[in-house]
């Protein structure tokens, strides 16, 4: 791999938001394609962040500054990716369910997904089922990701899945859920396709679900 991409991955891993966009530009100036810069630099760096976060070697502060650096890099790269029609790793509609205003965990998942090349449509917090349904119809995502941090709002996940079914779009998407009180068992009970206990695992889950998605489509 080219040196500039190695350096880019390292700076992203270190959360250096000043240097990352400079290196993105340098890599492009050296003739690398936007897709190569994304995959070989930014996503490679973010993957390492995800692995080390999950293994307890990095913590929430490091993930946040890496995501901030990713964002700075994508600011340069995104228009070029759009121009050159580079496909994302997948499209995800995400939000915190109705009645729940917690957003840190959901944002972290969104940032990690973006950092891994997914396109995210963030519906924000306190998102009622019909808003998820509308977003699925409008954006036609591969995945729907829901967060709940209150035991009282967890049933909102089931209601959202039911609403997707009623609207006839449930089969078009894979549904993943997470949030402090949410468990694997609960995810199965409500008919979600997957549960992730943390943001790094959410990326792996999203990739696994995309794999199934590709085989199906």
């Amino acid at each position, binding site marked *: 791999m080219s040196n500039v991409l190695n350096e880019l991955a390292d700076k992203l891993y270190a959360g250096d938001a000043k240097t990352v966009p400079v290196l993105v530009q340098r890599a492009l100036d050296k003739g690398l394609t936007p897709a190569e810069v994304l995959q070989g630099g930014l996503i490679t760096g973010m993957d390492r962040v995800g692995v080390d976060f999950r293994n307890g070697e990095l913590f929430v*502060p490091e993930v946040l500054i890496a995501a901030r650096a990713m964002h700075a890099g994508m600011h340069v790269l995104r228009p070029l990716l759009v121009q050159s029609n580079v496909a994302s790793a997948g499209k995800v509609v995400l939000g915190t369910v109705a009645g729940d205003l917690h957003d840190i965990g959901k944002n972290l998942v969104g940032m990690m997904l973006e950092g891994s090349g997914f396109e995210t449509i963030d519906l924000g917090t306190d998102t009622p089922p019909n808003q998820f349904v509308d977003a699925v119809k409008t954006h036609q995502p591969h995945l729907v990701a829901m967060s709940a941090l209150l035991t009282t709002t967890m049933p909102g996940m089931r209601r959202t899945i039911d609403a997707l079914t009623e609207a006839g779009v449930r089969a078009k998407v894979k549904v993943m859920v997470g949030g402090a009180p949410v468990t694997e068992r609960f995810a199965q009970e409500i008919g979600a396709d997957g549960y992730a206990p943390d943001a790094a695992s959410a990326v792996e889950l999203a990739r696994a679900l995309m794999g199934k998605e590709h085989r199906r489509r």
Partner: protein
Amino acid sequence: MSLTSRERVIAQIQHRETDYLPYTIRFGSDVGEQIEAYGTDVAERLDTCYGSPAWRNLVDNAITRINTHSLGVDASTGSIFTDVYGCKWRVDRRPFHLEEPALKTPSFKGFNLPDVDTLFNARWKEKTLHAIKQTPDHFVAVGFGFGLWERAWTLRGFDGALMDAASEPDFFEELLDRITEHQLAIIERLVELPVDGVLFSDDWGYQRGVLLGPERWRRMMKPRLARMYARVHAAGKYTLSHCCGSVADIMPDIIEIGLDVYESVQPEARDNSPYELKRKYGDKITFWGGLGSQSIIPFGRPEEIKAEVSKLCREMGRGGGYILSPAKPLQPETPTENAAAVVEAFLQQAGVTFP
């Protein structure tokens, strides 16, 4: 002669077993007694369930919490307000949350923490002394709301504080120094009161671990908290700290700097099983809480709740060092029969015959 609740709590902190376990049950939202806008109060549903509020008189909360000035949230002024630190809050939704931090960038330009004298108005001591006198037989813990980490993130925003800790460590450590001096000045006033302990509120943990990471916590939080705990001990009082989430990774450090009572003991958080913590550290610290608010209380069956309370009493109470409590106040979504199971099991272990 039977012990008072206060004596029972102190015996537990000194790791002596008592006739039964001192306990606390709180009702309502996380935020405390000030905000009751979140649906039907569990306690009121229990009034209906038992046919009258008489059951309330049977509940003997062994620890009285007295909050002084700076909890930082006052719902009486409307849904959005700015506190004396310059943080803008929204309190009509769940959870109450920070709309806008006081410091938008990692800089102190034009910013000073409020003068501690102005936080304690002329009547605070009189009012606090009056509140303390209401429960002479209880262990009284006086608190000042947001602790060191909490105050840091409320001033910089949650993401902001976490990112500062990693990318602006000099700024962040100065922020922590300023808050430490500020809170030491607050503690100076609190330890003059005739109370048994000072209650800190500092959520260092989240579901998966220590937010800042254990090493950074040791470097940034531990020495500053040690100073605060030492001041409380120098005044002959106990240190208590709320912290939900997982703090298993730093439990030896928390013990080392002199925390006497660790409150919440949220069993669903990673590696935070009260039984496991008891096995490892039970002779060095007192656990207060441990009945799961994310699992068994909202989703368990009443008989499961009663069985878990029995297990907590049996295993956590062994050798002292335990105060029975749900990990959080009973939330509005708690099914009435589950809330009743908690109350009944707590009273039963205390030998109170329930109507």
